[in-house]
């Protein structure tokens, strides 16, 4: 699904280029549930930007679903992103002036799908994440966990190959975190590749694979049986 080979990236600064990713080699198979851990400054965000095709890289190679992601134009990157990747963010990033269904439908707008079809698919997706009764609510009327469910529905609505979740439980209490993790695990069980960036150990502990990032390099790549309360059966 994802293959990173000797990936390097540096940011230009006034005092010369500042290397952030210093040779990342990583392979993620289809259907994996992977946590990426690391302290701030470890290169997590940059890696997420590169994986999400929101930013380029300097040397090495990034293959997504068998396709080399390299020197794409912004528009091509946007199209590939729209087709292949769904994003989930720590602070949900629902548009406040749209109701839940409209928020979920927004990615389809950028795929050029008509409004009626968008709304139909979005409503179905809200049913799938258990929010059928909140379809017409505005984000302000939803709890944190409900907002994140809406965000996950929005990430799934384009039927991408990969979900990139950036601290998806960072703004939630532990009970709600469990629910969200359970939802992500369920999505993973249905065959979706899910990649979670987190600094919370109990979240990472629920993933079969944990990649530890430190100072721009992969420090450790653990594979194990998931554990912890509320783990998927």
């Amino acid at each position: 699904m994802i293959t990173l080979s000797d990936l390097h990236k540096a940011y230009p600064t006034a005092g010369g280029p500042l290397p952030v990713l210093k040779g990342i080699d990583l392979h993620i198979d289809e259907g994996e549930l992977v946590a990426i851990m690391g302290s701030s400054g470890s290169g997590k965000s940059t890696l997420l930007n590169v994986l999400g095709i929101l930013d380029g890289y300097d040397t090495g190679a990034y293959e997504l679903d068998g396709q080399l992601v390299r020197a794409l134009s912004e528009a091509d990157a946007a199209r590939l992103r729209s087709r292949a990747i769904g994003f989930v963010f720590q602070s949900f990033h629902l548009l406040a002036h749209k109701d839940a269904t409209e928020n979920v439908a927004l990615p389809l707008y950028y795929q050029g799908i008509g409004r009626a079809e968008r709304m139909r698919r979005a409503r179905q997706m809200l049913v799938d994440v258990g929010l059928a009764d909140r379809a017409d609510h505005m984000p302000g009327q939803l709890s944190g966990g409900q907002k994140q469910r809406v965000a996950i529905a929005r990430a799934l609505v384009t039927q991408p190959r990969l979900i990139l979740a950036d601290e998806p439980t960072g703004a939630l209490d532990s009970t709600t975190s469990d629910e969200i993790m359970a939802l992500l695990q369920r999505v993973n069980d249905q065959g979706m590749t899910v990649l979670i960036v987190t600094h919370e150990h109990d979240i990472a502990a629920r993933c079969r694979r944990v990649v530890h990032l430190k100072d721009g390099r992969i420090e450790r790549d653990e594979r194990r049986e998931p554990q912890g309360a509320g783990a998927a059966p």
Partner: protein
Amino acid sequence: MTGWLDRLREVVESHTRHRFRTAVTAGSVAWGIFMLVLLLGAGTGLENNIRWQFRDDAINSIWIYPGMTSQPWEGQPVGRVVQFSNADIERIVEVVPEIDHISGRFYLRGEFTITAQTPAGGTRSGAFSVRSCHPGHRYIEQTMMVAGRYLSPRDLAAERKVIVIGLRVAEFLFPGRPLSGVLGEWVDLAGIQYRVVGVFEDVGGEGEMRQVYIPITTAQAAYGGGDQVHQVMFTVGDATVEEAAGIADRVRRVLARNHHFAPGDLRAVRVRNNLESFHEIQQIFVWLRIFIWLVGVGTVAAGVVGVSNIMLISVRERTAELGLRKAIGATPGQLVSMVVQEALLLTATAGYAGLVGGVAVLEAVRRLMPENEYIRDPQVDMPAVIGATVLLVVAGTLAGWFPARRAARVAPVEALRSE
């Protein structure tokens, strides 16, 4: 496919979300255009009004009135009253060939009772003011004949008792008669019978159309005037302001020689040079127009700065939203076009509202205050105002375009992290 309605919905939604900011921006744009329209309209109104006040008489006319000498000359004392005569006019025509029409007036003061016979055998009379003059008067006063003819040189030479009457006079004395039927009728003017040879209109308005004209020679003979002339007036063709001043000066010198006063004695004759006054007023209008445009350009510039600022703030505030839209598959082009369309919609709507509002106010002024001293027929130069509106819209659009382009390029993960 997503249609224009879909896109419009996205754009409008963004404005309804930030009602206050949208209102302030729209307000500043609309106000700028509104004020520009009002300013330009008021300027045109003032100018039209002045032109209208000049409408009665030929702009290229010079009027000369006799005065009293204020300098001793050729042994004559000061304080001598100057009196023009028919000979003066003949002399002026000889010496100053640039004059294309000339006339004197012999004043017949007060109103005169004019009586006409009705077809039924009765009489009908009214009081009107009478002017006696030369044939050239027609061009100086801008008299327009609607029936018959004006006074002719032969009328003057023969001191004929003929009369040219204003349209209102004709309507009053001969009610219900066709104008051509009025010609040849006899009217009684202070005991003397005159034959009507023409009926006229005058752009100068109602008062002018209540006048009657008779030959100056007839008036002089009938009312004991000898060959006295109270006032000389003439037009100077297409002479420039400088040439007109020169002509007036030469006429003054002819009169000075005829009446033995100092050529430089400005009190001996008084000169009213319409061309010069009109030119002076036009100069004022040039400055007024420059002033109005400066204010207008300033207003529009302020609007441009306002719109630019608001768009900058709007884009900055929405970094997270733009980042999110980018993450879920919007191309930079789509993001930029969304912001630009927002700016376009806002400024174009507001600019149009200001334009319509301004024009409506001008129209209201025109309807509700048709006759006043200051403003007449206020209008705006539509291409100029539309140009200003387009300028504002373009500026607002550019002001959205630049920051949006920058925002659309940023990798959004950081922007989306912080909230």
